[in-house]
């Protein structure tokens, strides 16, 4: 039995509705998905075993995260708002709570291969990074989270490239450090708004971070200041995605585009996927989560 098949069987015993969705979503992703997922899960199991844990622990974390999502979705359906309104509230509830952060980070890590839209966005990221492989000398990831994209950057970008990850959460940084296991990466525990680098960066990744902020535009403007003039910013954000740590509600992709353009960027390429397999009109009506991603360059003055 493959590791993915084992995970889905485990989930089916606890959350049959979610397992049903996973079975439907993951059967059509192709051979490359199977290869990537098994390779990643093999590395992840090694990481877990070094901590005296196993895949079952990670699946339990994932199930807790799904339970959180479900409860938040029910409230979102009724109120039309996310449950957290301020960074201070989320900080107390999540970021400064190591137990919550731990299951949330492990849950998110598994979601990269269990959520179809997460995996497809990861593929988009790989393609966009690949286009800049030759010219990305200095790579920065803001809010590196679980480290999946960081690991890909370390794999793809040449030995001469510097790699920096800045995160406000020590738990995230530690998980990313262990997952990437790469001495080339500099991990910086800092608020990005207080981060003062020695140089500008050629490629900056901000993956599913701006929805965690009270003022997402401020982060994009901050990133513009850190980005080389001919550099690229890769940014992703979800719409209608109730979660315990989401603050800023984007109601549609247009609101994200508007934010991007207002922060002084031009959109070079973009990609989006709904979290449920259904026609776009139905997904809009039901306020189904849409994951939006784009590669940006500084707009001409």
């Amino acid at each position: 039995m493959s590791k993915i098949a084992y995970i889905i069987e485990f989930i089916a015993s606890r959350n049959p509705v979610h397992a049903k969705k996973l079975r439907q979503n993951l059967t059509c992703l192709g051979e490359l998905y199977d290869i990537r997922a098994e390779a990643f899960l093999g590395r992840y199991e090694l990481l877990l075993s070094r901590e005296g844990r196993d895949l079952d622990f990670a699946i339990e974390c994932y199930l807790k995260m799904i339970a959180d999502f479900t409860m938040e979705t029910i409230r979102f359906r009724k109120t039309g708002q996310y449950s957290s309104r301020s960074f201070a509230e989320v900080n107390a509830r999540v970021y400064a709570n190591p137990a919550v952060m731990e299951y949330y980070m492990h849950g998110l890590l598994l979601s990269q291969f269990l959520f179809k839209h997460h995996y497809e966005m990861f593929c988009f990221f790989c393609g966009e990074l690949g286009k800049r492989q030759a010219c990305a000398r200095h790579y920065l990831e803001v809010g590196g989270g679980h480290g999946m994209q960081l690991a890909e950057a370390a794999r793809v970008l040449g030995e001469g490239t510097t790699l920096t990850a800045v995160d406000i959460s020590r738990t995230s940084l530690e998980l990313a450090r262990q997952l990437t296991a790469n001495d080339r990466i500099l991990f910086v525990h800092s608020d990005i708004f207080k981060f003062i680098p020695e140089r500008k960066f050629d490629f900056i990744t901000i993956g599913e971070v701006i929805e965690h902020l009270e003022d997402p535009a401020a982060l994009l403007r901050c990133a513009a200041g850190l980005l080389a003039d001919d550099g690229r910013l890769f940014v992703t954000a979800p719409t209608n995605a109730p979660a315990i740590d989401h603050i800023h509600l984007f109601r549609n992709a247009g609101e994200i585009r508007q934010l991007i353009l207002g922060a002084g960027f031009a959109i070079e390429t973009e990609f989006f996927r709904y979290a449920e397999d259904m026609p776009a009109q139905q997904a809009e009506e039901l306020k189904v989560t849409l994951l939006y991603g784009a590669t940006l360059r500084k707009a001409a003055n």
Partner: protein
Amino acid sequence: MNVNELLQPILNTTSPLQLADGPESIPTWDSIAQINIITAIEDLVGGELSTDEVLSLKSVARVVEICRAHGVELAVGPS
């Protein structure tokens, strides 16, 4: 109210539901339907379900039990 009246429109079926029915036996009982079932129960009982109740909702029988725990008796059988 009969449990069929509550669940059949959400699950888009006219077949009478059995207590043992759940996501495995009803093709339309998916993640969207699950949220719709929970919100329909909350509307019916006039209160919010706990996380444990939400997570345990895996069958028609459990829908009936949860409603009963909130003081609403659902009839079972053809409506």
